[in-house]
């Protein structure tokens, strides 16, 4: 099941996932998933709860080891036991549903920590970059607020800035708006859309169909550990063939 007919499919894909299997104990969560993401491409993954979307994203930056198959990120095999995980994770940023900001550090410190401690970059330089990122996610003035003092949407934007501070080549978003109240969802989606428009390679798990339709180059539908259907958003949403996809879309829309 290899995706075809993409927009920017000219060179080797930045992420190449082939026949990935993953079980937790006896539960097989991924049962042979394959997909490619080209540089600068934005893909969205949708599907019912428990279908393995989060697990798939976690496999890409080696938070979860895979059982079988292959994931190649920028030429590096993730499944290789000799893989330098830290190296990989510098390249791949990830934003979670629950933001997971570090509550004991201010917004700007959250953004600055990893570049300083992991990349060993110069503090002053990191700080000026952090300020630019905070401005980019429209949080000027909130630099010194603690996560507990920010709304969900604001926290999620800090989390995005924190990931961007590592200058990743790829960003993974795992249902980043699922825990937000409807009013702040938009702020976050706007931020992600801007990123996508600037050419960042993104893999996005989302339940926001409107957003997926608008921002994705390619949409994947997963169910019970396999990719059931995929295609460019226009085709995907208008003329899904698979009955499970159709049922899911009818319930959600």
């Amino acid at each position, binding site marked *: 099941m290899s995706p075809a007919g993409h927009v920017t499919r000219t060179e080797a894909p930045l992420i190449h996932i082939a026949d990935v299997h993953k079980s937790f104990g006896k539960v097989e969560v991924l049962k042979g998933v394959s997909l490619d993401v080209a540089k600068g491409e934005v893909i969205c993954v949708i599907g019912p709860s428990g279908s393995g979307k989060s697990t798939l994203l976690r496999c890409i*930056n080696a*938070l979860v080891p895979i059982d079988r198959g292959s994931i190649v990120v920028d030429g590096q095999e993730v499944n290789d036991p000799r893989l330098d*995980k*830290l*190296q990989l*994770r*510098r390249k*791949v*940023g*990830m934003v*979670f549903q*629950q933001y*997971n*900001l*570090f*509550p*004991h550090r201010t917004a700007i410190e959250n953004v600055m*920590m*990893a570049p300083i*401690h*992991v990349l060993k970059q110069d503090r002053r330089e990191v700080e000026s970059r952090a300020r630019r990122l905070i401005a980019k996610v429209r949080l000027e003035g909130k630099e010194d607020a*603690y996560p*507990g003092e920010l709304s969900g949407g604001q926290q999620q934007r800090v*989390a995005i800035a*924190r*990931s961007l501070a*590592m200058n990743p080549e790829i960003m993974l978003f795992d249902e980043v708006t699922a825990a937000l109240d409807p009013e702040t969802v938009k702020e976050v989606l706007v931020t992600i859309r801007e990123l996508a428009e600037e050419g960042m390679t993104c893999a996005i798990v989302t339940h926001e169909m409107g957003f997926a339709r608008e921002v994705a180059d390619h949409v994947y539908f997963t169910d019970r550990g396999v990719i059931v259907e995929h295609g460019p958003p226009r085709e995907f949403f208008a003329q899904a063939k698979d009955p499970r996809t159709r049922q899911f879309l009818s319930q959600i829309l």
Partner: protein
Amino acid sequence: MRAGPYGTTDLPVLLPFRPGARGAAEPAPGLGAAWGVALALVFALSAGIAEAQSDAGRPSTVATILKWTPLLAQGFALNILISFLAMAIGTAAGTVLGLCQISLLPPVRTGSWFMTQFFRNSPWLVLLFYCMLLLPFEVNVGGHIVPLPDWFKATVGLALPVMANVSELVRGAIRSIPFGQWEAADALAFSRRQILWMIILPQCVKRMTPPWMNLYAILTVATPLCSIVGVNEAMTLTGDALAAEARNELLVPMYAYLLLWFFLYCYPISRATVALEKRFAVK
């Protein structure tokens, strides 16, 4: 209903005391003062009764107690010294032991778990006897003879259970940090050591402070146990004073007096703990 910030502490008595029932929002400092006064009254009353019982011609109860006060104060200072030292030693050792409990190496993890459980399950007094009677009175450190005075051995004896409790506190606090924090830090390419020291432990400190202060209060009220093994702290000296006076009408006021000393020292600590806990709970 959800596990609170201390939800994972296995030591409920270490949880800060929450004064007042739902409907009873008493002004707390007033209440504390009231009880301090009440205890002082009990003391005064017992002194009065003793006064009435004592034979004419003997010095008054109050005068007698005042006469012994400087000695008692010396003893009490030793109690406090022991509590400080035992807490310091116990906290240092307990933190290490607690970190060992989440080590990735199974033998280290199991070993430190056993050690923690062993010292947690031993009665304080038995550990105290153990250290008191079986530690040498002096040790040879690189040719130097370093004496181990009684009170120091008792301090070690008290530091052992403190260590075990701190170990559990550390482990509990670390476990109570949401897994997402580890995961997010992992995704940012922090190493395990960095995650622990820069992200997890700083958050633990805050969570641990109130129960840690409570542990200190518990330790402080445990220091009179040293008197059983013969350390000359406040309790022992109270007993000696009573023996020297040989007037048993003094028993009530003298022990009430000693209780008052401890209350005056511990009560503010428990208030501060509650205040701290409240402040942390708001954030």
